[in-house]
């Protein structure tokens, strides 16, 4: 009996292991993206969508989080963060270059994320 229980447990365990390793095609991801206004929102979301594998991207000005649904077999959250940083927005993972930040419209000059 004990053996069976162990076996079942082992099975479940290995199963969850596999599940964890398996890359999700609909992975929900959230991270911080700095920005101020509606113009920022359009720029940030546009940058996120430019990454292949991003299915849904919604950035919220009030709390500064981006909500993503990504296909992990095609991209990672770091890829998306990089693309967003490239248009001048600091993220939790990647900081924008100063020159890209300086190109932003006056009202988009958000408070930069300290690293």
């Amino acid at each position, binding site marked *: 009996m004990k053996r069976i229980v162990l076996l079942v447990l082992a099975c479940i365990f290995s199963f969850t292991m596999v599940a964890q390793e398996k890359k999700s095609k609909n992975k929900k991801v959230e991270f911080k993206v700095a920005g101020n206004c509606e113009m920022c929102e359009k720029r940030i979301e*546009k940058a996120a969508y430019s990454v292949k594998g991003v299915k849904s991207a919604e950035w919220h000005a009030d709390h500064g989080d981006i909500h993503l649904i990504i296909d992990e077999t095609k991209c990672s959250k770091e890829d998306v963060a990089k693309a967003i940083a490239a248009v001048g927005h600091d993220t939790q993972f990647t900081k924008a270059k100063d020159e890209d930040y300086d190109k932003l419209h006056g009202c988009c000059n958000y408070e930069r994320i300290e690293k």
Partner: protein
Amino acid sequence: MFKNIAFLLFFVSQFIYSQETIKGIVTDENNQPLLGANVFWFNTAVGTTTDENGNFTIKKSPETSSLVISYIGFETQKIDVVNNTISVILKEVKTLKEVTITKTKKGTEHSLYKVQNIQVMGQKELLKAACCNLSESFSTNPSIDVNFSDAVTGNRQIKMLGLTSPYILIAEENIPSVRGASQAYGLSFVPGTWVESIQITKGAGSVINGYESISGQINYEVLKPSNDIPFFLNAYASQDERYEINTHFNNKFSDKLSSTLFLHGNTRVGKNDMNNDGFLDGPIGKQVNILNRWQYNDAENGIVSFLNVRYMNDEKQAGEMSFNPDTDRLTTNAWGSEINTEKIEISNKTGYVFPDMPYQSFGFQNSFQSHKQDSYFGLSQYDIHQKSFYSNLLFNSIINNTKNKFTTGLNFSYDDYNEFVAMNFNRDFSRIDNSVGAFFEYTYDNSDNFSLVAGARVDNHNRLGTFVTPRLHIRYNPWKEAVIRASAGRGKRAANIFAENQQLFASNRNFSILNTDGKLYGLNPEIAWNYGLSFIQKFKLVGKDVEVILDYYRTDFQNQAVVDIDASPQDVLFYNLKGNSFANSFQAEFSVDLMTHLTFKTAYKYYDVQTQFVTGQMQRALQAKHRVFGNLAYETHIKDKGQQWKFDVTYNWLGEQRLPYTQSNPVQYRLDEYAKAFGTLNAQITRTFSSTFEVYVGGENMGNYKQMNGIVQNENPFGTYFDSSMIYGPTFGAMYYAGLRFKIKDKKQNHEIEELAPVKEEAHNH
């Protein structure tokens, strides 16, 4: 030395001038430079920010000399720039004051971002029409024209883009509801208090709801049990002795299951003849209408489901004042009419949203309806019983990302008609119609200023054949606060010539169908293309919010079941269109918030609706070419306990209307060629005593305009010339009413349960 400095300063200022830039510094009260303060020209998007030393440079603006400097935690300053160098000291805000932003919600919202030309009439707009059912809800909306269909039944008919309601797809939560047998009176069978909102789409609609819409779609949402209040009461009484009562009982069994029972009753007991033609101005009668609605919400698993069970019984009696149905029915003692309708409906819709994919969902709608009308008009009899089943399965998802969405699915509809007509001929038109269709609709949205919806469906109908229905909608925002929309689409439908033209039964016209080879009463299906262009601009004019809307729509019939009442005043002819039939409509709407809580809206409408009749190409009769609409709404500020006054005045002006041909009648039974222009004025005052109790009074047609010759040969309704269908204006005079609304609210208002049903979201997205 001093000279040198002066020279240098002079030089510098010259240099700055030639560059047309302004230099400045922004500091706080302790003379510390502020880094990252916003500096921009007032009312423009031109701006910059200060550097680490608090310095900025900005190019001169041709538009304004007012410069705005803001910094979080400091008071914003607006300064008039006269010099080319400025220094600004910002004062620190000691405590950030709490700011309450209030905006008066508009009754009808025009979206700048939806692809289709959709306007949403919310509760606030619906309350402006105190009475009583859906057919009366549009009196404050300039896009829909409401008129009486005849002088006998008191029925109101709605028109959009110059075309009558059969060309509008009317749906209850996306299930087609007013169609077939219910076409004439269906809107009056939906009590206004049940309705949560109405979405009006001009032009070709979405393919999801079917192929029948030609001039537009009207979808109404019924109150949702999950966010309804426990009890609602509305009572209404009018001067013409019409009484209505509505009660809603809501119960939330758990956070998932809730139900509302809607009870409606109305009765009209007053026999009125204000225009002294010997006929009742409106019918007397009664209606009982019961709806029990269940909602099951499981937000965690993404399931929302609704079940509606409904029963309605409506009895109307119209005709001569002296008519007594017990002794005079179907005799020539007196002319009278009775219309009795019984309706049973069971419908269900279920939506499932994939928990890890909020953009992917299934929707499944099923509806069974039985609509039975037994009626007679003088010596003519008309009975129709339609049993129908409608089913729609939808799947929503995306292609790559949410900028590319699609909806696809299958429809099935089955209609069993028992239809019997007895007048100048007796005939049984019973038949069974069914259709199966598949549709696909693609939506692209660049999440900025452009979107489009392209849809197509293929249907197989036992009478209409196999056919494709394409529809296209485009939206573009060319600049701020503006939108341009274009649409094109095809519609096809089976005309129910008797059910849709019941007003003609109240005449002694002979009915003839001139074609015999078609599958629909001998006629062919109606086919039309609709094209539209719309422009909306919102802006501020001396600080007031202004909205300008320009719409142009054209409907071109390839085939139409022409209803010809112009060939002879003793005939009504039905035949397939030979030649042109079209409806052009242009609408210019202007609305302005004159001051806080005071809104003025006006619209001009132009209609050119022509059809090739046997006697020539003519303007459609009983259709005004020019119409003007005006509405003034004022409300006082809501006080602590919810006390408020609301005032609303609506004016409608109709230009001259062509009247049907009557020149071959004896002189006393002839009408003028054109009916004169006239205007009507409606007004309403609402007094809210608290958030749970309010009363209202109002008046309709307060100018007391009456069409006096509404019934031709009213003194002998069994004579050759009798006709009550040539109605261009109100046949009753001024009418006043009063009513009350009482609510019991939840202790804690569970607004967070306002989980959007996926099927509902559907309605708003398209």
